[in-house]
């Protein structure tokens, strides 16, 4: 154990002391922060679309159009459509579209409404406007049918209830959004880091071999100790990197970013929420609806948590409060480490078997295939399919696929017995694979100038010590 510890220390320190490690550790959160700020700034600059409404129908539709966060309705310049159009074109600040209710427009036929704009009107904007108009006409019709305002309010209250229901669904959807984003981010991290650091293990081994230091080492320590020391040392590097990223991205998103963003846009940082997650890499803006919902009225999430301190901008971290954070972090670390150990043992065996990097290609193939496949299949089965379905279950049980599949399932919630079973299987798989890898490794590291085949590798497993 002492020796593994010594080797671990060397492997860890030589890597952490490298400039490239520092650069990546600092750059990644900065990049994330920068991207998020840029996206927020762009979003903030865009603001709601202003739609000029030209209503000569006499039906008073314009006054019933309700502003939303996305669209503001303003009256167009008075006069004919042509005049309104001219004013629209000159309008400062720029208006997104001109909505026209022509003279012949009636509530019953509801025809002839036009949207005028420079260039194409995006589908989404058209849809938003259509909905607003629809609602306004509906209200007008109800009023016309002789319902008293009270009744309409009642009905509207119902409509509002329905809206809340919809919003709840929307809220759920938002949760699903967060959850899905989380699942993506976590599994991409596992995939990337197993790959990147597994290859580092492989390169480390073949470097030692190329440096001809193996014989010196192996006369001092057991091959297994050397292999495990290297694998664990590099695991330490990954964990350090994670920790640095977590701290740095927390610092950037909660301290630096609010300072850089406008104070009157307290929710501006929200879109980064689901993504900046504890681990924070790629950013995909959350649906705008989410932050509307969050900002507009207290949601389930917000109520459940201690509300953010007054005056403090809404923190992206509170987006995660609805998720089983404890089990996600714990599970992520466990399955990442388990997967890393399992795969890097195989990478170490490859590194030991070949004389130089180029020869490694042919052996990397069968190792990387399960990794890539488990990622692709997991996305289809778990995120796009049923996170608790039978296929998802089996994917998250097989040790070769479980590191990615299980981590992907974590944000959706996984029964404890499954976590336990999968964890046990992963440990068993890791022990088994490491045992086999170590047997190849101990022969491979002292074998020079030989083109190795799969047949050869399998023979090495049975060599006597």
């Amino acid at each position: 154990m002492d020796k593994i510890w010594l080797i671990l220390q060397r492997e860890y320190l030589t890597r952490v002391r490298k400039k490239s490690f520092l650069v990546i550790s600092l750059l990644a959160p900065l990049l994330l922060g920068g991207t998020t700020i840029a996206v927020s700034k762009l979003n903030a600059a865009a603001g709601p679309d202003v739609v000029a409404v030209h209503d000569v129908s006499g039906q008073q539709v314009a006054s019933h159009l309700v502003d939303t966060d996305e669209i503001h309705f303003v009256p167009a310049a008075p006069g004919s459509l042509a005049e309104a159009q001219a004013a629209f074109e000159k309008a400062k600040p720029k208006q997104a579209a001109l909505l026209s209710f022509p003279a012949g427009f009636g509530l019953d036929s509801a025809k002839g409404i036009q949207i005028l704009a420079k260039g194409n009107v995006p589908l989404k904007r058209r849809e938003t406007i259509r909905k607003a108009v629809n609602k306004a006409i509906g209200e007008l019709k109800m009023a016309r049918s002789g319902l008293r305002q009270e009744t309409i309010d009642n009905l509207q209250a119902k409509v509002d209830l329905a809206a809340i229901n919809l919003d709840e669904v929307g809220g759920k959807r938002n949760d699903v959004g967060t959850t899905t984003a989380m699942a993506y981010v976590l599994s991409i991290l596992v995939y990337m880091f197993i790959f990147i650091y597994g290859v580092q293990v492989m390169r480390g081994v073949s470097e030692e071999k190329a440096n001809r230091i193996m014989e010196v080492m192996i006369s001092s320590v057991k091959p297994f100790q050397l292999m495990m020391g290297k694998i664990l040392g590099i695991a330490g590097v990954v964990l350090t990197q994670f920790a640095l990223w977590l701290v740095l991205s927390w610092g950037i998103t909660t301290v630096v970013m609010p300072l850089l963003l406008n104070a009157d846009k307290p929710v501006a940082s929200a879109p980064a929420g689901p993504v900046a997650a504890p681990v924070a890499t790629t950013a995909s803006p959350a649906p705008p609806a989410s932050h509307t919902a969050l900002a507009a009225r207290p949601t389930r999430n917000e109520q459940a948590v201690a509300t953010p301190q007054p005056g403090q901008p809404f923190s992206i971290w509170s987006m995660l409060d609805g998720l089983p954070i404890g089990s996600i972090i714990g599970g992520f670390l466990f399955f990442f480490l388990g997967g890393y150990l399992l795969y890097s043992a195989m990478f170490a065996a490859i590194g030991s078997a070949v004389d130089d990097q180029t020869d490694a290609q042919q052996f990397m193939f069968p190792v990387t295939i399960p990794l890539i496949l488990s990622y692709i299949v997991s996305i289809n089965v778990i995120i796009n399919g049923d996170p608790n379905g039978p296929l998802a279950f089996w994917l998250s049980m097989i040790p070769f696929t479980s590191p990615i599949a299980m981590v992907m399932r974590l944000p959706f919630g996984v029964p404890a017995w499954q976590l336990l079973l999968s964890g046990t299987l992963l440990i068993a798989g890791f022990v088994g694979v490491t045992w086999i890898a170590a047997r190849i490794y101990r022969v491979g590291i002292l074998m020079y100038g030989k083109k190795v085949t799969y047949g050869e590798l399998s023979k090495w497993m049975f060599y006597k010590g």
Partner: protein
Amino acid sequence: MQQVNSRPILEAREVRKHYAAHTALDGVSLAVPERSIFGLLGPNGAGKTSLIRIITQITGADSGEILFRGERLNPSHIGQIGYLPEERGLYKKMKVGEQLLYLAQLRGLGRADAVQRIKGWLDRLDLKPWAQKNVEDLSKGMQQKVQFVATVLHQPSLIILDEPFSGFDPINANLIKDEILRLRDEGATIIFSTHRMESVEEMCDSIALINRSHKVLDGPVSAIRNQFKTNTYEVEGQGRLLVVHPDFEVVEQKARENDHFYARIQLHAGATPNDLLRFLIGQVQVHAFRERIPSINEIFIQRVRETMPESLVEETAR
């Protein structure tokens, strides 16, 4: 020459090692006396490295046993053995001082102890200015010196050097030779493994010859050479040499310029060198007269010839 008959520090008994395609060691037994320099000699592929790898516990023997100070070899002995492999190598991107410290600690040396000794060794081998440099910035000769230091830093009582002088220039080779002798005088036992027998026979107290996975011969160098003496004398002189004598037989004779000659003459049983000298003085002017002691290389070839079909001998000698 040291006294070589002391208790063996290392003993191999009937060691066998088979690889998939061939037998590397076929029942090799030998004993390495303590506080001596022991030559493990033989051509390439004889099985030297296989034996060393078993002694250094890199691999295990299929059968037979190795005793270290009378105890069955086990991992607790690693700290008492230093090994300089034929394939030299260090971590290229690691500083000299750190590297030595790391390797010493892996051999079980405490940190403070190691730092102290590294200082001493770097001083002695003029490596001090390089302690903070990466190994890759050093010349090849200097890297070799660092590697040698790494081998002996933990003060092993058994030092195994595989082809120790390859890669050293003559000056550094002498420096290392002196260090090896000093270590021996301080109580260490050294095993030299080499196929260049002439390079170490002057340093070795005793040797073992290995050929084709068998031990051919072993014992103290002086005893072996005496054992293989053929009672042959080398003569150089001037004049016309004609030997017709029942006691002497000319093995080889070469004429040189100006009536000079060189000859190897074997004495038959009962004759003494003085008899030969008397005989020669009557015939020619003698410039040099000395007993011909076979080199280890010659002994090896002769020995192999005795135990092997002729066709293989040629191959082996090459």
